[in-house]
């Protein structure tokens, strides 16, 4: 094996085709898209070099600011929700349900395998205000409260999106974080218990620090997913009411595809990529600091 891997030709043969396909279907379109950021025009009328005009336009565009803010708000709330609820589930599986957690894990994981559009339609019906009264409003009416136009108001529409996406993904993060929590050596836990640590003290001082790397990994997963959210919002609110729940991805999609403005659409995509990179780097940096504190 060693002789095969030290042979450059063998490496070329093994990696070459995959690298070529990756270059064709990933790198090339990415570079192409990067190139589009310096052009204006459309596929029909042709493209013209525009220098940094698209970037200046992004800066002055009254729609880009709210889209960036919504993206950040959504990413923060949903990432925190997914990780916190996922971690609580992991603790529940490990310390309370123990061996009986299989059934619960499967049930909680179930929304992950459901198609996003199906989940969105389910939530649309559940939170419907008009023309029919949905389940949630029926319950409110039953309790003597007024119906709420959940998807018709920016604030409540955000709440429904956040609930849906946290519910949909917490099973996945529960399983991911569970693998980190069960990896903690039993003798460390035992020693802490002998030293008189209670359940909460054990979680705070032993479980969280020792599972921190997997929490960070889950956080990076989640924040990159939530910054790039598209399908759930597109299917649930279509970015509405108006453009109140329009993240950058949806704004990019509308600009590039509905508006045919690929240059500006690519610029929005590049901004989103930069945002994802900055957030990931920030998380890695804070992780490095935290690991030093814990060690």
């Amino acid at each position, binding site marked *: 094996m060693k002789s095969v891997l030290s042979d450059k030709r063998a490496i070329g043969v093994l990696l070459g085709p995959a690298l*070529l396909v990756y270059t*064709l279907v990933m790198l090339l379109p990415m570079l192409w898209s990067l190139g589009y950021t310096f052009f204006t025009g459309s*596929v*029909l009328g042709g493209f013209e070099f525009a220098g940094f005009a698209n970037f200046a336009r992004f800066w002055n*565009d009254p729609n880009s600011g709210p889209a960036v803010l919504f993206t950040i708000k959504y990413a923060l709330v949903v990432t925190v929700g997914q990780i916190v609820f996922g971690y609580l589930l992991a603790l529940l599986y490990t310390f309370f349900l123990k061996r009986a957690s299989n059934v619960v894990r499967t049930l909680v994981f179930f929304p992950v395998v459901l198609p996003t559009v199906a989940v969105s339609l389910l939530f649309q019906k559940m939170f419907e*205000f*008009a*023309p029919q009264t949905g389940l949630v409003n029926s319950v409110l009416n039953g309790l003597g409260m007024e119906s709420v136009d959940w998807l018709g108001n920016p604030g409540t529409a955000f709440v429904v999106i956040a609930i849906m996406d946290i519910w949909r993904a917490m099973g996945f993060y529960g399983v991911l974080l569970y693998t980190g929590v069960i990896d903690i050596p039993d003798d460390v836990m035992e020693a802490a218990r002998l030293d008189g640590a209670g359940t909460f003290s054990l979680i705070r001082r032993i479980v969280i620090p020792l599972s921190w790397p997997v929490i960070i990994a889950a956080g990076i997963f989640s924040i990159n997913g939530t910054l790039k959210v598209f399908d759930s919002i597109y299917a649930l609110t279509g970015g509405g009411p108006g453009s109140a729940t329009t993240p950058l991805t949806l704004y990019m999609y509308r600009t590039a595809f509905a508006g045919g403005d690929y240059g500006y659409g690519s610029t929005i995509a590049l901004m989103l990529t930069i945002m994802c990179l900055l957030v990931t780097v920030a998380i890695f940096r804070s992780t490095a600091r935290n690991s030093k504190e814990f060690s």
Partner: protein
Amino acid sequence: MFHSTSRARRTVLTAAAAAVVAIGLAACSSGGSGAGSSAKEFTFLAINENSTIPTVLTSLSENECAAENKALPLKINKQAQASLDQQLQLLGGQNALPSAFVSPNSPDLLKELDSAGKVTDFTGTDVEKSIVPVALSGVHTLYDDKTLVLPTELNIEGIWYNKALLEKAGVSEPTSWESLKDSFATLDSAGVQPISAAGKGGDGWGVTRWVGAYIYRTLGPDALKKISDGSAKLTDPEYADAANVVAELGSSGYFGPSPSSIDYATALNQFLTGQAAYYYMGSWAVSAFNDPEQNKIGADNIGFLPFPAVSGGKGSADQTPANVGTDIAFSKSAYDGDEKVKSWASCIAANYGAAALREGQITGFAVNGDVEVPPLTQLVQTEIADSGETVQWFEALFGPAATTASQTNGGPLGSGQLSGSDFMNTVQSSITN
């Protein structure tokens, strides 16, 4: 030995790389959909929201255009109206437009397709001679004096009302904007939802039509042309006022509790089941009004009111919002490259008018033969014949981005969540960008 093995390896590597590149390129290339001379089918791209065109085309393929259909069988594909423009841009960019298709929501896009040489201009052809003058004038207004579409609809727009609901609330047919507004209040206090309007997602044009009509009545028939040529802005106070008036109707609840949750089909259903008194809509809805399955309030219970004049305004009620509605365009390469496609176009032009009228749809084609039509269709024919100057709809002269901005924000405007000024700011910024 070593050399020959090395050469063999290089050959295998090169062949493998070439195969991968070929597969990649094949995956990236487009599959033409019938454009060009080798088309095996007459492909037509329809929209889910319009069932009349596919019905009439199917009827033609079985009757008047049976010979054309035998030579080149009709194949209809459908998709959502909201993503039609996007689909046509992509297909146009890949030279893969279907033989014929419902024209884009934004007339600007069809002009762009024309500039790129992708659509047929029927100007001066025999096909154009089948189009009646009022429809041809509407087509030329939209497409810079070119006949880029065949008018499979000819519509007037206005306010349809439920006679029984008005009578029950003691409201007589309003004759001015002021009396119309008063009637909203009367109906509302009588527990009747005054207006049925769609505002969900891209269906917000159900609300923005009110803005456009009010602008024409207050600022005159050239008001929106001034926006498209840049000599006025939607944020100018007199334009913003129109949106504010509609936002006020919304905050008073006249469009119902949540127009943002109501789509086109639901709004139509609300009116046709007696849940709302007024419904601003184009005459394309008359085919639904004439359908007893859909219309539960009775066709004779529906009246038509041209959008009334606003006191002190520069416009008048006889300036009728008229358009060629959902019309169809032909791919230039399919039309020029295939005589069978040309035959289809000629057959459609010659026979569509009568076939559609049998379905209750008035079109911009001359009708070959007598067709008996229901009273509501007759009413629309009379209104079209009597209409003076015609005007367009709110977004008619906007580009795709501004059209999307307007239509997606129509819902919040109609529910009073968005002020008129904010609405106009949003749309104007999309025009400017």
